[in-house]
């Protein structure tokens, strides 16, 4: 897969001296959905704004479709659509004219059929002649998406598209994002909802304190999450794993007082029953037992805590 967005060592220090991006390097694959997770103030919006030309980087470089965002800004920006985090619309403007305006602003000739298709896709066609101030919050957000799509971008940045959106609309939004992906649009979205990243992303990135802590394939992450561990605590410590249990790939921990067994929760047979039978048959006495699961949430929390520890 080729990379449609290449971000190299991107830095941003705001006028007050605050370092919001501390050298972010990230490649975004063509056609993927990348979810960026991170706590408030992590630098997600700053990252997106810098790529889109709204804020000036203090260092590093960004290429979109191979074009430098500063040297070849026209070619680079023509490929990008942006849906900002904050809803910003001219209150007295009509839905259809604001979407048309966006298309013109990006230098594309007027195309009423295309605008109609976009508005219909986002269930805004009935509202096309309404003034923007007459729309609900969720509708306004969809207008912002329509504006971002009006010039047929190949890369779409969605900054918290589902913040303050009800459950049903969130599902609609996910569907829209999936359809856009099917049309070949590369999508980068930020979110605070881990379920959202799980539901739609191909890859997941975690940002904290202006640093990219992790970018990984969602399925790989899910596999790690699907892993569960059972820890069997013994009343008598062992020096080695008994011959009878050799086939289980067990780990000896806690000075020989605990046996740790990893298994896949989604496998048909987890092997727990036979393991426990064999443990009893080997003459080992159980004192206690517990299971642990790594979730995306846990990975996320750990990473963020690590970042905050570094900063402190």
């Amino acid at each position, binding site marked *: 897969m080729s990379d449609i967005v290449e971000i190299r060592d991107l830095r941003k220090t705001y006028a007050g001296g605050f370092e919001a991006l501390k050298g972010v390097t990230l490649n975004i694959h063509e056609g993927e959905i990348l979810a960026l997770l991170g706590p408030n103030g992590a630098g997600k919006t700053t990252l997106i704004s810098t790529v889109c030309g709204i804020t000036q980087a203090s260092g590093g470089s960004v290429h979109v479709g191979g074009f430098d965002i500063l040297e070849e800004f026209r070619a680079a920006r023509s490929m990008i659509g*942006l849906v900002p985090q904050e809803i910003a619309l001219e209150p007295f403007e009509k839905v259809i004219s604001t979407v048309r305006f966006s298309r013109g*602003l990006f230098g594309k000739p007027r195309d009423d059929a295309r605008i109609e298709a976009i508005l219909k896709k986002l269930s805004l066609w009935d509202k096309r002649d309404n003034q923007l101030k007459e729309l609900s919050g969720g509708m306004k957000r969809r207008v912002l998406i329509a504006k971002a799509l009006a010039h047929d971008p190949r890369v779409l940045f969605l900054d918290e598209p589902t913040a303050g959106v009800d459950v049903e609309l969130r599902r609609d939004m996910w569907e829209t994002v999936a359809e856009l992906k099917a049309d070949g649009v590369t999508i980068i979205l930020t979110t605070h909802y881990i379920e959202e990243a799980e539901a739609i992303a191909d890859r997941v990135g975690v940002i904290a304190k202006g640093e990219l802590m992790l970018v990984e394939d969602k399925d790989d992450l899910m596999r790690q999450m699907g892993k569960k561990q059972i820890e069997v605590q013994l009343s008598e410590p062992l020096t080695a794993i008994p011959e009878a249990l050799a086939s289980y790939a067990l780990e000896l921990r806690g000075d020989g007082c605990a046996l740790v067994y990893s298994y896949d929760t989604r496998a048909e047979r987890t092997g727990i029953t036979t393991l426990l039978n064999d443990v009893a048959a080997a003459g080992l006495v159980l004192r206690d037992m517990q299971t642990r699961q790594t979730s995306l949430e846990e990975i996320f929390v750990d990473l963020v805590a690590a970042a905050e520890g570094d900063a402190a």
Partner: protein
Amino acid sequence: MNFTAIMAIYKFEMARFFRTLMQSFLSPVLSTSLYFVVFGAAIGSRIDEVEGVSYGAFIVPGLIMLSVMTQAISNASFGIYFPKFIGTIYELLSAPVNFLEIVCGYVGAAATKALFIGLVILVTAHFFVDLEIQHPLAMLAFLVLTCLSFALLGFILGIWAGNFEQLQLVPLMIVTPLVFLGGSFYSISMLPPVWQTVTLFNPVVYLISGFRWSFYGMADVPIGLSLLAIGGFTLACLAVIWWIFRTGWRIRN
């Protein structure tokens, strides 16, 4: 040049103007009529003539300039300040347009509106006094250049302004006094010698003088100087705007 983008911005701005067309049209007609009643009829009846031109006719170029300058400034400054204020400027900044295209769109629209109002006043004045326009082409050129240069100034103001107060204060505190003291309603030669010299530091004097020359062939300062002044002013504004977009001052944080 991305002409489609320029037209998109221009049309978008003009749409705002057409939404309030009645107000855009009525207020200059009304205020001009009032000026004629007060200055032309009441005061003018005591000043009968200025260098061979009836006082009512004499003030017409100044009146037009006064409205055109304030309108161009307020339209352009509001046009760019508003997107900054409500946040829609993100779209301009992320679009494949350069500073010249953004300026052409906004300043072009603001200048068009100001020009429209200037012409409305000219027509309204025509009903009150006998107007002669000796150099119609020069008159139009001065009018258009004034609309453009003051719209450029307004654009700078709109980008600089941090709140609505500043947006309104600058035209009110700086531009209106300069225009009133710039010979809109009197000839410089009517002032005491000291004030004649002081007045020459007011850039607006050169514009009004040139504009009046295109009507009646009389001027306070040589016409060449007037042209130089307006040309220099336009270039200075363009240079400032170019710098603003280069550095991202007050737009790209």
